[in-house]
Protein backbone atom coordinates (compact mmCIF):
# COMPACT_ATOMS: atom_id res chain seq x y z
CA UNK A 1 0.00 0.00 0.00
CA UNK A 2 1.29 3.43 -0.95
CA UNK A 3 1.41 5.85 1.97
CA UNK A 4 -0.80 8.91 1.60
CA UNK A 5 0.27 12.55 1.59
CA UNK A 6 -0.75 13.08 5.20
CA UNK A 7 1.18 10.09 6.35
CA UNK A 8 4.31 11.33 4.59
CA UNK A 9 3.86 14.83 6.00
CA UNK A 10 3.50 13.29 9.42
CA UNK A 11 6.76 11.39 8.99
CA UNK A 12 8.57 14.54 7.84
CA UNK A 13 7.22 16.56 10.77
CA UNK A 14 8.27 13.87 13.23
CA UNK A 15 11.68 13.71 11.56
CA UNK A 16 12.15 17.42 12.22
CA UNK A 17 11.44 16.96 15.92
CA UNK A 18 15.07 16.49 17.09
CA UNK A 19 16.24 19.76 15.52
CA UNK A 20 13.14 21.50 16.84
CA UNK A 21 13.78 20.20 20.35
CA UNK A 22 17.30 21.67 20.27
CA UNK A 23 15.81 24.99 19.19
CA UNK A 24 13.30 24.91 22.05
CA UNK A 25 16.05 24.13 24.56
CA UNK A 26 18.02 27.05 23.16
CA UNK A 27 15.09 29.35 23.89
CA UNK A 28 14.67 27.86 27.38
CA UNK A 29 18.34 28.65 27.93
CA UNK A 30 17.55 32.29 27.19
CA UNK A 31 14.77 32.59 29.77
CA UNK A 32 15.53 35.13 32.47
CA UNK A 33 15.77 33.17 35.72
CA UNK A 34 16.02 34.88 39.07
CA UNK A 35 18.65 32.53 40.46
CA UNK A 36 21.93 34.37 41.08
CA UNK A 37 24.12 31.45 40.02
CA UNK A 38 22.38 30.89 36.69
CA UNK A 39 22.85 34.50 35.66
CA UNK A 40 26.61 34.09 35.46
CA UNK A 41 26.90 30.47 34.35
CA UNK A 42 24.08 28.61 32.66
CA UNK A 43 23.95 24.96 31.58
CA UNK A 44 24.43 24.37 27.85
CA UNK A 45 21.06 22.78 27.12
CA UNK A 46 21.55 22.75 23.35
CA UNK A 47 24.79 20.81 23.75
CA UNK A 48 22.99 18.11 25.77
CA UNK A 49 20.28 17.72 23.15
CA UNK A 50 22.73 17.63 20.25
CA UNK A 51 24.69 14.89 22.02
CA UNK A 52 21.54 12.93 22.83
CA UNK A 53 20.21 12.97 19.28
CA UNK A 54 23.58 12.30 17.66
CA UNK A 55 23.93 9.17 19.75
CA UNK A 56 20.35 7.94 19.38
CA UNK A 57 19.15 9.27 16.03
CA UNK A 58 22.09 10.62 14.02
CA UNK A 59 19.97 10.29 10.87
CA UNK A 60 17.52 12.91 12.16
CA UNK A 61 19.96 15.47 13.54
CA UNK A 62 22.54 15.88 10.78
CA UNK A 63 25.81 17.77 10.85
CA UNK A 64 24.24 20.61 8.87
CA UNK A 65 21.41 20.92 11.41
CA UNK A 66 23.90 21.01 14.29
CA UNK A 67 25.90 23.67 12.46
CA UNK A 68 22.84 25.86 11.84
CA UNK A 69 21.60 25.49 15.43
CA UNK A 70 25.04 26.55 16.66
CA UNK A 71 24.91 29.56 14.39
CA UNK A 72 21.54 30.52 15.82
CA UNK A 73 22.92 30.18 19.34
CA UNK A 74 25.82 32.50 18.49
CA UNK A 75 23.51 35.06 16.93
CA UNK A 76 21.02 35.07 19.78
CA UNK A 77 23.45 35.04 22.66
CA UNK A 78 25.81 37.63 21.23
CA UNK A 79 28.71 35.19 21.16
CA UNK A 80 31.53 35.40 18.61
CA UNK A 81 30.06 34.04 15.40
CA UNK A 82 30.96 30.52 14.30
CA UNK A 83 32.23 29.17 17.61
CA UNK A 84 29.08 27.33 18.74
CA UNK A 85 28.58 26.14 15.17
CA UNK A 86 31.98 24.51 15.23
CA UNK A 87 31.51 23.03 18.70
CA UNK A 88 28.08 21.54 17.99
CA UNK A 89 29.30 20.25 14.61
CA UNK A 90 32.26 18.49 16.24
CA UNK A 91 30.07 17.05 19.00
CA UNK A 92 27.51 15.83 16.45
CA UNK A 93 30.10 14.17 14.22
CA UNK A 94 32.08 12.69 17.08
CA UNK A 95 29.07 11.31 18.94
CA UNK A 96 27.33 10.02 15.84
CA UNK A 97 30.36 7.92 14.91
CA UNK A 98 30.57 6.50 18.44
CA UNK A 99 26.80 6.16 18.79
CA UNK A 100 26.78 2.37 18.47
CA UNK A 101 28.97 2.11 21.57
CA UNK A 102 26.16 3.46 23.75
CA UNK A 103 23.42 1.18 22.40
CA UNK A 104 22.06 -1.40 24.83
CA UNK A 105 24.14 -0.01 27.65
CA UNK A 106 22.78 1.39 30.92
CA UNK A 107 22.05 5.10 31.02
CA UNK A 108 24.98 5.81 33.33
CA UNK A 109 27.37 4.90 30.49
CA UNK A 110 25.79 7.52 28.28
CA UNK A 111 25.97 10.03 31.15
CA UNK A 112 29.68 9.40 31.57
CA UNK A 113 30.11 9.61 27.82
CA UNK A 114 28.43 13.00 27.76
CA UNK A 115 30.47 14.29 30.69
CA UNK A 116 33.61 13.29 28.77
CA UNK A 117 32.49 14.77 25.44
CA UNK A 118 31.46 18.02 27.10
CA UNK A 119 35.00 18.68 28.40
CA UNK A 120 36.61 19.28 24.99
CA UNK A 121 33.43 21.00 23.82
CA UNK A 122 33.63 23.56 26.62
CA UNK A 123 37.39 23.86 26.23
CA UNK A 124 37.14 24.61 22.50
CA UNK A 125 34.35 27.10 23.11
CA UNK A 126 36.33 28.85 25.82
CA UNK A 127 39.59 28.92 23.86
CA UNK A 128 38.09 30.13 20.58
CA UNK A 129 35.86 32.71 22.28
CA UNK A 130 38.83 34.02 24.24
CA UNK A 131 40.94 34.17 21.08
CA UNK A 132 38.25 36.04 19.15
CA UNK A 133 37.55 38.49 21.98
CA UNK A 134 41.33 38.82 22.48
CA UNK A 135 41.13 38.45 26.25
CA UNK A 136 40.96 35.47 28.58
CA UNK A 137 37.39 34.84 29.62
CA UNK A 138 36.90 33.88 33.28
CA UNK A 139 37.55 30.15 33.49
CA UNK A 140 35.59 29.83 36.74
CA UNK A 141 32.25 30.59 35.10
CA UNK A 142 33.10 28.10 32.35
CA UNK A 143 33.81 25.38 34.89
CA UNK A 144 30.59 26.07 36.79
CA UNK A 145 28.76 26.00 33.49
CA UNK A 146 30.34 22.64 32.64
CA UNK A 147 29.43 21.11 36.01
CA UNK A 148 25.84 22.33 35.68
CA UNK A 149 25.66 20.88 32.17
CA UNK A 150 27.03 17.51 33.25
CA UNK A 151 24.79 17.29 36.34
CA UNK A 152 21.58 18.34 34.60
CA UNK A 153 22.06 16.03 31.59
CA UNK A 154 19.84 13.18 32.94
CA UNK A 155 16.82 15.51 33.23
CA UNK A 156 17.09 16.67 29.63
CA UNK A 157 17.93 13.17 28.40
CA UNK A 158 14.89 11.77 30.24
CA UNK A 159 12.59 14.33 28.62
CA UNK A 160 14.07 13.70 25.19
CA UNK A 161 13.81 9.93 25.65
CA UNK A 162 10.12 10.26 26.52
CA UNK A 163 9.58 12.34 23.40
CA UNK A 164 11.58 9.89 21.29
CA UNK A 165 9.51 6.95 22.50
CA UNK A 166 6.20 8.64 21.82
CA UNK A 167 6.96 10.48 18.59
CA UNK A 168 9.77 8.71 16.79
CA UNK A 169 9.10 5.02 17.33
CA UNK A 170 8.10 4.35 13.74
CA UNK A 171 10.08 7.09 12.01
Amino acid at each position, binding site marked *: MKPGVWHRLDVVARGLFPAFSVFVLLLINLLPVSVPLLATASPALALMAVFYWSVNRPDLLTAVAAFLLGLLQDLLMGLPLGVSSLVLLLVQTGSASQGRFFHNKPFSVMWWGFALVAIPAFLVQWLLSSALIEAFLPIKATII*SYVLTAVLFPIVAWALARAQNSLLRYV
Partner: protein
Amino acid sequence: MAQHGGPQQRIFSPLRTALHRFAFILLIFTAFGLMLLGKADTVLIERIRAASADLVSPVMNVISRPAASINELTDKIYNLAHLYEENERLRRENQQLLAWQQAARNLSHENVRLRELARYTNPPALHLVTSRVIADMGGAYAHSVMISAGSRDGVAKGQAVISDEGLVGRVAEAGYQASRVLLITDINSRVPVIVENSRDRAFLSGDNTNRPLLTFLTADAAVAPGDRILTSGHGGAFPPGIPIGVVSSVSENAVRVAPLFRRHQLEYLRVADYGLQGILSEKRIRESQSPVNHNDTQLSPDIPMGVGVVPENAPATSNAPSNGATP
Protein backbone atom coordinates in the same frame (compact mmCIF):
# COMPACT_ATOMS: atom_id res chain seq x y z
CA MET B 1 16.79 1.07 -3.37
CA ALA B 2 19.72 -1.25 -3.05
CA GLN B 3 19.34 -2.44 0.49
CA HIS B 4 20.82 -5.88 0.08
CA GLY B 5 24.31 -5.04 -1.00
CA GLY B 6 23.79 -5.02 -4.76
CA PRO B 7 26.21 -3.45 -7.22
CA GLN B 8 24.61 -0.05 -6.63
CA GLN B 9 25.40 -0.29 -2.95
CA ARG B 10 29.03 -0.99 -3.71
CA ILE B 11 29.29 2.15 -5.82
CA PHE B 12 27.15 4.52 -3.81
CA SER B 13 28.19 3.66 -0.29
CA PRO B 14 31.79 4.93 -0.57
CA LEU B 15 30.49 7.86 -2.58
CA ARG B 16 28.10 8.79 0.19
CA THR B 17 30.82 8.51 2.83
CA ALA B 18 33.07 10.74 0.75
CA LEU B 19 30.25 13.23 0.33
CA HIS B 20 29.63 13.27 4.08
CA ARG B 21 33.29 13.82 4.76
CA PHE B 22 33.41 16.60 2.21
CA ALA B 23 30.35 18.28 3.76
CA PHE B 24 31.93 18.01 7.20
CA ILE B 25 35.15 19.66 6.07
CA LEU B 26 33.19 22.32 4.21
CA LEU B 27 31.18 23.11 7.36
CA ILE B 28 34.35 23.38 9.44
CA PHE B 29 35.80 25.86 6.97
CA THR B 30 32.50 27.75 6.96
CA ALA B 31 32.67 28.01 10.76
CA PHE B 32 36.17 29.50 10.61
CA GLY B 33 35.05 31.76 7.77
CA LEU B 34 32.21 33.00 9.96
CA MET B 35 34.65 33.73 12.78
CA LEU B 36 36.72 35.88 10.43
CA LEU B 37 33.61 37.56 9.04
CA GLY B 38 32.43 38.29 12.57
CA LYS B 39 35.74 39.99 13.32
CA ALA B 40 35.83 41.96 10.08
CA ASP B 41 32.37 43.11 9.09
CA THR B 42 30.49 44.17 12.18
CA VAL B 43 27.71 46.16 10.55
CA LEU B 44 26.37 43.25 8.52
CA ILE B 45 26.62 40.85 11.47
CA GLU B 46 24.85 43.38 13.66
CA ARG B 47 21.93 43.55 11.25
CA ILE B 48 21.70 39.75 11.17
CA ARG B 49 21.85 39.58 14.97
CA ALA B 50 19.11 42.20 15.28
CA ALA B 51 16.99 40.26 12.80
CA SER B 52 17.45 37.02 14.73
CA ALA B 53 16.46 38.80 17.94
CA ASP B 54 13.32 40.03 16.17
CA LEU B 55 12.64 36.49 15.01
CA VAL B 56 12.52 34.89 18.45
CA SER B 57 11.21 37.86 20.42
CA PRO B 58 7.48 37.01 19.99
CA VAL B 59 8.13 33.52 21.36
CA MET B 60 10.36 34.79 24.16
CA ASN B 61 7.80 37.45 25.00
CA VAL B 62 5.20 34.76 25.65
CA ILE B 63 7.30 32.10 27.35
CA SER B 64 9.14 34.56 29.59
CA ARG B 65 5.86 35.50 31.26
CA PRO B 66 5.27 32.21 33.12
CA ALA B 67 8.96 32.23 34.02
CA ALA B 68 8.51 35.71 35.47
CA SER B 69 5.54 34.62 37.55
CA ILE B 70 7.49 31.65 38.93
CA ASN B 71 10.27 34.07 39.82
CA GLU B 72 7.72 36.31 41.49
CA LEU B 73 6.50 33.40 43.61
CA THR B 74 10.00 32.47 44.81
CA ASP B 75 10.62 36.15 45.54
CA LYS B 76 7.44 36.31 47.59
CA ILE B 77 8.40 33.30 49.67
CA TYR B 78 11.84 34.76 50.24
CA ASN B 79 10.39 38.14 51.20
CA LEU B 80 7.93 36.57 53.60
CA ALA B 81 10.77 34.88 55.42
CA HIS B 82 12.69 38.11 55.76
CA LEU B 83 9.76 40.41 56.48
CA TYR B 84 10.88 41.56 59.90
CA GLU B 85 14.48 42.44 59.06
CA GLU B 86 13.38 44.08 55.82
CA ASN B 87 10.91 46.25 57.71
CA GLU B 88 13.57 47.33 60.20
CA ARG B 89 15.98 48.14 57.42
CA LEU B 90 13.39 50.14 55.49
CA ARG B 91 12.44 52.12 58.59
CA ARG B 92 16.05 53.14 59.13
CA GLU B 93 16.47 53.92 55.44
CA ASN B 94 13.30 56.01 55.46
CA GLN B 95 14.65 58.19 58.27
CA GLN B 96 17.85 58.78 56.35
CA LEU B 97 15.98 59.47 53.14
CA LEU B 98 13.73 62.06 54.78
CA ALA B 99 16.82 63.96 55.84
CA TRP B 100 18.15 63.68 52.30
CA GLN B 101 14.85 64.85 50.89
CA GLN B 102 15.10 68.04 52.90
CA ALA B 103 18.64 68.58 51.69
CA ALA B 104 17.64 67.89 48.10
CA ARG B 105 14.77 70.37 48.25
CA ASN B 106 17.01 73.12 49.55
CA LEU B 107 19.62 72.36 46.95
CA SER B 108 17.17 72.21 44.08
CA HIS B 109 15.77 75.65 44.96
CA GLU B 110 19.28 77.00 45.18
CA ASN B 111 20.14 75.31 41.90
CA VAL B 112 17.19 76.90 40.09
CA ARG B 113 18.26 80.32 41.34
CA LEU B 114 21.87 79.83 40.33
CA ARG B 115 20.89 78.56 36.90
CA GLU B 116 18.78 81.63 36.33
CA LEU B 117 21.70 83.81 37.34
CA ALA B 118 24.14 81.95 35.09
CA ARG B 119 21.75 81.69 32.11
CA TYR B 120 22.30 77.94 32.09
CA THR B 121 20.95 76.11 29.04
CA ASN B 122 19.07 72.99 30.04
CA PRO B 123 20.28 69.64 28.72
CA PRO B 124 18.06 68.05 26.04
CA ALA B 125 14.83 66.55 27.28
CA LEU B 126 14.99 62.91 28.26
CA HIS B 127 13.01 60.38 26.27
CA LEU B 128 12.48 57.12 28.13
CA VAL B 129 11.25 53.81 26.75
CA THR B 130 10.33 51.21 29.35
CA SER B 131 10.51 47.58 28.31
CA ARG B 132 10.55 44.12 29.74
CA VAL B 133 13.55 41.80 29.85
CA ILE B 134 12.50 38.83 27.72
CA ALA B 135 15.76 36.89 27.58
CA ASP B 136 18.96 36.67 29.56
CA MET B 137 21.91 35.44 27.54
CA GLY B 138 23.49 34.07 30.65
CA GLY B 139 26.68 32.16 30.57
CA ALA B 140 30.37 32.46 30.82
CA TYR B 141 30.90 33.97 27.40
CA ALA B 142 28.59 36.95 27.13
CA HIS B 143 26.73 39.22 29.51
CA SER B 144 23.71 40.59 27.71
CA VAL B 145 19.93 40.61 27.93
CA MET B 146 17.19 40.98 25.34
CA ILE B 147 14.46 43.59 25.81
CA SER B 148 11.09 43.83 24.14
CA ALA B 149 11.60 47.23 22.55
CA GLY B 150 13.22 48.08 19.25
CA SER B 151 13.48 50.73 16.60
CA ARG B 152 9.68 50.82 16.43
CA ASP B 153 9.70 52.28 19.96
CA GLY B 154 12.56 54.65 19.26
CA VAL B 155 15.36 52.48 20.60
CA ALA B 156 18.65 52.87 18.76
CA LYS B 157 22.11 51.44 19.08
CA GLY B 158 24.30 53.04 21.73
CA GLN B 159 21.52 54.36 23.98
CA ALA B 160 21.90 54.03 27.73
CA VAL B 161 19.87 51.34 29.49
CA ILE B 162 19.06 52.00 33.12
CA SER B 163 17.22 50.18 35.86
CA ASP B 164 15.79 51.66 39.03
CA GLU B 165 19.21 51.35 40.60
CA GLY B 166 21.44 52.79 37.91
CA LEU B 167 23.16 52.15 34.62
CA VAL B 168 22.79 48.59 33.35
CA GLY B 169 24.39 48.80 29.94
CA ARG B 170 23.87 50.05 26.44
CA VAL B 171 21.93 48.93 23.41
CA ALA B 172 24.22 46.73 21.33
CA GLU B 173 21.84 45.96 18.49
CA ALA B 174 18.36 47.33 17.96
CA GLY B 175 15.95 45.24 15.94
CA TYR B 176 12.45 46.28 14.98
CA GLN B 177 10.69 44.94 18.07
CA ALA B 178 13.52 43.64 20.24
CA SER B 179 17.02 44.75 21.13
CA ARG B 180 20.08 43.27 22.75
CA VAL B 181 21.54 45.12 25.71
CA LEU B 182 25.23 44.73 26.44
CA LEU B 183 25.63 44.80 30.22
CA ILE B 184 28.41 46.84 31.81
CA THR B 185 29.88 43.57 33.10
CA ASP B 186 30.43 42.21 29.58
CA ILE B 187 34.00 41.92 28.37
CA ASN B 188 33.23 44.22 25.43
CA SER B 189 31.83 47.01 27.59
CA ARG B 190 33.76 50.24 28.28
CA VAL B 191 32.08 53.14 30.02
CA PRO B 192 33.75 56.49 30.79
CA VAL B 193 33.20 57.14 34.50
CA ILE B 194 34.19 59.40 37.37
CA VAL B 195 34.59 58.71 41.06
CA GLU B 196 31.90 60.72 42.83
CA ASN B 197 33.94 62.27 45.62
CA SER B 198 37.40 62.68 44.15
CA ARG B 199 36.20 63.39 40.56
CA ASP B 200 38.94 61.08 39.27
CA ARG B 201 38.27 59.88 35.75
CA ALA B 202 38.51 56.30 34.60
CA PHE B 203 36.98 53.65 32.40
CA LEU B 204 34.72 50.94 33.71
CA SER B 205 35.80 47.83 31.81
CA GLY B 206 33.79 44.64 32.05
CA ASP B 207 35.59 41.29 32.15
CA ASN B 208 32.62 38.88 32.22
CA THR B 209 32.70 38.68 36.01
CA ASN B 210 30.18 40.34 38.31
CA ARG B 211 32.74 42.93 39.34
CA PRO B 212 33.95 45.10 36.45
CA LEU B 213 37.33 46.83 36.66
CA LEU B 214 38.25 50.50 36.87
CA THR B 215 40.91 51.01 34.23
CA PHE B 216 42.99 53.98 33.06
CA LEU B 217 42.87 55.37 36.58
CA THR B 218 45.69 57.82 37.26
CA ALA B 219 48.38 56.68 39.67
CA ASP B 220 47.58 59.35 42.25
CA ALA B 221 43.83 58.77 42.18
CA ALA B 222 42.29 58.43 45.60
CA VAL B 223 39.87 55.52 45.42
CA ALA B 224 38.63 53.62 48.44
CA PRO B 225 36.07 50.84 48.84
CA GLY B 226 32.61 52.35 49.17
CA ASP B 227 33.19 55.21 46.72
CA ARG B 228 30.34 55.71 44.29
CA ILE B 229 31.01 55.56 40.57
CA LEU B 230 29.01 57.68 38.10
CA THR B 231 29.03 58.06 34.34
CA SER B 232 31.19 60.99 33.31
CA GLY B 233 29.44 61.80 30.08
CA HIS B 234 32.69 61.89 28.13
CA GLY B 235 32.53 60.66 24.59
CA GLY B 236 28.92 61.71 24.27
CA ALA B 237 27.64 58.19 24.66
CA PHE B 238 26.00 58.54 28.05
CA PRO B 239 24.87 61.63 29.93
CA PRO B 240 26.92 62.47 33.02
CA GLY B 241 25.88 61.53 36.53
CA ILE B 242 24.06 58.21 36.11
CA PRO B 243 25.01 56.06 39.12
CA ILE B 244 26.78 52.83 38.16
CA GLY B 245 28.15 51.15 41.23
CA VAL B 246 30.25 51.21 44.34
CA VAL B 247 33.95 50.41 44.57
CA SER B 248 34.09 46.96 46.13
CA SER B 249 37.79 46.25 46.38
CA VAL B 250 41.05 48.10 45.85
CA SER B 251 44.28 46.16 45.40
CA GLU B 252 47.70 46.74 43.87
CA ASN B 253 46.69 46.03 40.31
CA ALA B 254 42.92 46.14 40.21
CA VAL B 255 40.09 48.32 41.42
CA ARG B 256 36.79 46.47 41.19
CA VAL B 257 33.32 47.92 41.20
CA ALA B 258 30.11 46.27 42.37
CA PRO B 259 27.34 47.35 39.99
CA LEU B 260 24.16 48.66 41.60
CA PHE B 261 21.85 46.36 39.66
CA ARG B 262 21.43 42.67 40.36
CA ARG B 263 21.44 40.80 37.11
CA HIS B 264 19.15 37.98 38.14
CA GLN B 265 16.52 40.48 39.24
CA LEU B 266 16.42 42.59 36.10
CA GLU B 267 12.81 42.68 34.99
CA TYR B 268 11.93 46.08 33.58
CA LEU B 269 14.53 48.36 32.06
CA ARG B 270 14.38 51.88 30.70
CA VAL B 271 16.14 52.86 27.53
CA ALA B 272 17.12 56.50 27.78
CA ASP B 273 17.45 58.64 24.69
CA TYR B 274 19.23 61.79 25.78
CA GLY B 275 19.38 63.16 22.29
CA LEU B 276 23.11 62.51 22.30
CA GLN B 277 24.48 61.04 19.13
CA GLY B 278 27.13 59.09 20.95
CA ILE B 279 30.40 57.86 19.53
CA LEU B 280 28.69 54.59 18.75
CA SER B 281 26.20 55.90 16.25
CA GLU B 282 26.50 54.26 12.87
CA LYS B 283 26.02 57.57 11.10
CA ARG B 284 29.09 59.02 12.71
CA ILE B 285 31.18 55.96 12.05
CA ARG B 286 30.19 56.06 8.40
CA GLU B 287 30.92 59.77 8.19
CA SER B 288 34.30 59.26 9.74
CA GLN B 289 35.17 56.66 7.13
CA SER B 290 34.23 58.89 4.19
CA PRO B 291 37.16 60.01 2.03
CA VAL B 292 36.40 63.68 2.78
CA ASN B 293 37.64 63.21 6.34
CA HIS B 294 41.43 63.32 6.30
CA ASN B 295 42.38 62.93 9.93
CA ASP B 296 44.22 59.81 10.98
CA THR B 297 42.21 59.12 14.09
CA GLN B 298 39.29 57.62 12.17
CA LEU B 299 36.93 59.72 14.25
CA SER B 300 34.88 62.62 13.02
CA PRO B 301 36.16 66.00 14.23
CA ASP B 302 32.86 67.06 15.81
CA ILE B 303 33.41 64.89 18.86
CA PRO B 304 33.77 67.16 21.88
CA MET B 305 37.39 67.95 22.61
CA GLY B 306 39.24 66.18 25.36
CA VAL B 307 36.93 63.21 25.47
CA GLY B 308 38.96 60.38 24.13
CA VAL B 309 40.90 60.83 20.93
CA VAL B 310 41.74 64.42 20.07
CA PRO B 311 42.17 65.02 16.35
CA GLU B 312 45.70 65.94 15.43
CA ASN B 313 44.78 69.20 13.74
CA ALA B 314 42.91 70.45 16.80
CA PRO B 315 44.20 73.66 18.32
CA ALA B 316 46.18 72.99 21.47
CA THR B 317 44.00 75.15 23.67
CA SER B 318 40.71 73.56 22.84
CA ASN B 319 41.14 70.56 25.09
CA ALA B 320 42.25 72.58 28.05
CA PRO B 321 38.93 73.14 29.85
CA SER B 322 38.04 69.50 30.14
CA ASN B 323 41.49 68.65 31.41
CA GLY B 324 40.98 71.04 34.25
CA ALA B 325 44.26 72.75 33.31
CA THR B 326 42.93 76.19 32.59
CA PRO B 327 45.56 78.90 32.73
